């Protein structure tokens, strides 16, 4: 082997963690970058642009999971790309059977609908769980700040949706009726005394009543995440189903870790299988019972398995 060939050897440690995806062209790869919650400082963005111009062909692709992907990267440049991005500092993401980079909306910082700090949750999960091998298949986590759910949380293996439980302090209410007006779910109606009545079974936990209330008579009695588990998209989509309500933001990482633990254990010997399909095989109660031990105040009493979406193509199974 000539010296020239030796010098082009690639550090395989970079490849092992994933994030390098084979393209059609000879020697060309996509390099997926780690951008939790889809937010990044422009300094890092400039570094990414610099690397894309130098090693790619001056283009990047914005992935559907909020990542920036460098395209048309020659595998011989991997080490240089990783090193130069590192000056950003920008890290490479993952692929394969691992916990992926979490997605998130803008959350409560600047979005008027946001109820919880989804960006903070995404960063925490990225820091603590990103890249964890599942042993089976990919594992996706997403955070939506409110029930509008722009990030489509229920299509994730574990999906979080911001939620608040409203309570009225009658003394502060001026009876303007704005909450009744704003509530799209018929969870508030005006009583004969001119004060609003709450109809809990209709509430979706969106918090519109709090946001519109001129006197802050509506307050959040509980705040946290609605958690749906077992979602996925692709060839055989499943919508994740309800496992917990008002899970406090600070328990998110532990909750995901508990789900992961159950997944690894129950999928043993089944090869490449997603969490949703494991739940359908084992029954939702098995996971519900496990989670209830650890998160008793937040896990729901009963649920249903992740629901299959009729794609109308292929054979049902």
């Amino acid at each position, binding site marked *: 082997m000539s010296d020239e060939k030796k010098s082009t050897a690639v550090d395989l440690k970079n490849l092992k963690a994933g994030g390098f995806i084979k393209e059609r062209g000879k020697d060309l790869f996509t390099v997926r970058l780690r951008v939790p919650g889809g937010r990044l400082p422009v300094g890092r963005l400039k570094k990414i642009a610099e690397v894309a111009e130098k090693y790619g062909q001056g283009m990047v692709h914005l992935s559907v999971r909020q990542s920036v992907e460098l395209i048309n990267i020659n595998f011989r440049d991997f080490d240089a790309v990783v090193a130069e991005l590192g000056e950003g500092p920008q890290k490479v993401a993952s692929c394969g059977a691992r916990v992926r980079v979490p997605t998130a909306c803008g959350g409560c910082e600047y979005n008027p609908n946001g109820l919880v700090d989804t960006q903070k949750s995404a960063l925490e999960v990225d820091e603590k769980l990103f890249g964890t091998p599942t042993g089976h298949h990919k594992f996706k986590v997403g955070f939506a700040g409110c029930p509008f759910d722009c990030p489509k949380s229920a299509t994730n293996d574990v999906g979080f949706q911001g939620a608040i439980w409203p309570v009225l302090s009658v003394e502060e209410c001026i009876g303007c009726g704005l909450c009744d007006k704003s509530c799209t779910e018929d969870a508030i109606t005006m009583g004969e005394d001119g004060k609003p009545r709450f109809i809990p079974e209709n509430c979706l936990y969106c918090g519109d009543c709090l946001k*519109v209330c001129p006197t802050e008579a509506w307050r959040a009695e509980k705040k946290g995440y609605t958690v749906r588990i077992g979602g996925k998209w692709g060839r055989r989509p499943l919508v994740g189903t309800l496992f917990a309500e008002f899970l406090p933001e600070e328990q998110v990482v532990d909750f995901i870790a508990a789900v992961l633990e159950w997944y690894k254990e129950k999928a043993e010997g089944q090869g490449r299988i997603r969490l949703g399909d494991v739940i359908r095989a084992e029954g939702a109660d098995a996971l519900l019972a496990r989670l209830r031990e650890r998160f008793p105040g937040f896990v729901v009493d009963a649920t249903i398995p992740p629901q299959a979406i009729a794609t109308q193509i292929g054979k049902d199974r």
Partner: protein
Amino acid sequence: MTTVDLRGVTCPTNFVKAKLALEMVDTGEVIEFLLDDGEPVKNVPRSLKGEGHKLLGLKETDGYYVLTLEKGEE
């Protein structure tokens, strides 16, 4: 009291017009806005509250709403 008629003005133009009207009055002064039913009455009070103004009341009159508000700190 200043009354600003925002009926027939759609979101978010009605909110921007309300903001401009508020620039013309002093902090602590009370001002009235006339708002259409539907999206305007759901969005405008909430947005003005978010800008630090104090909502004093909301009354329905002949199919539209009268929002009374005290201007907050600049």
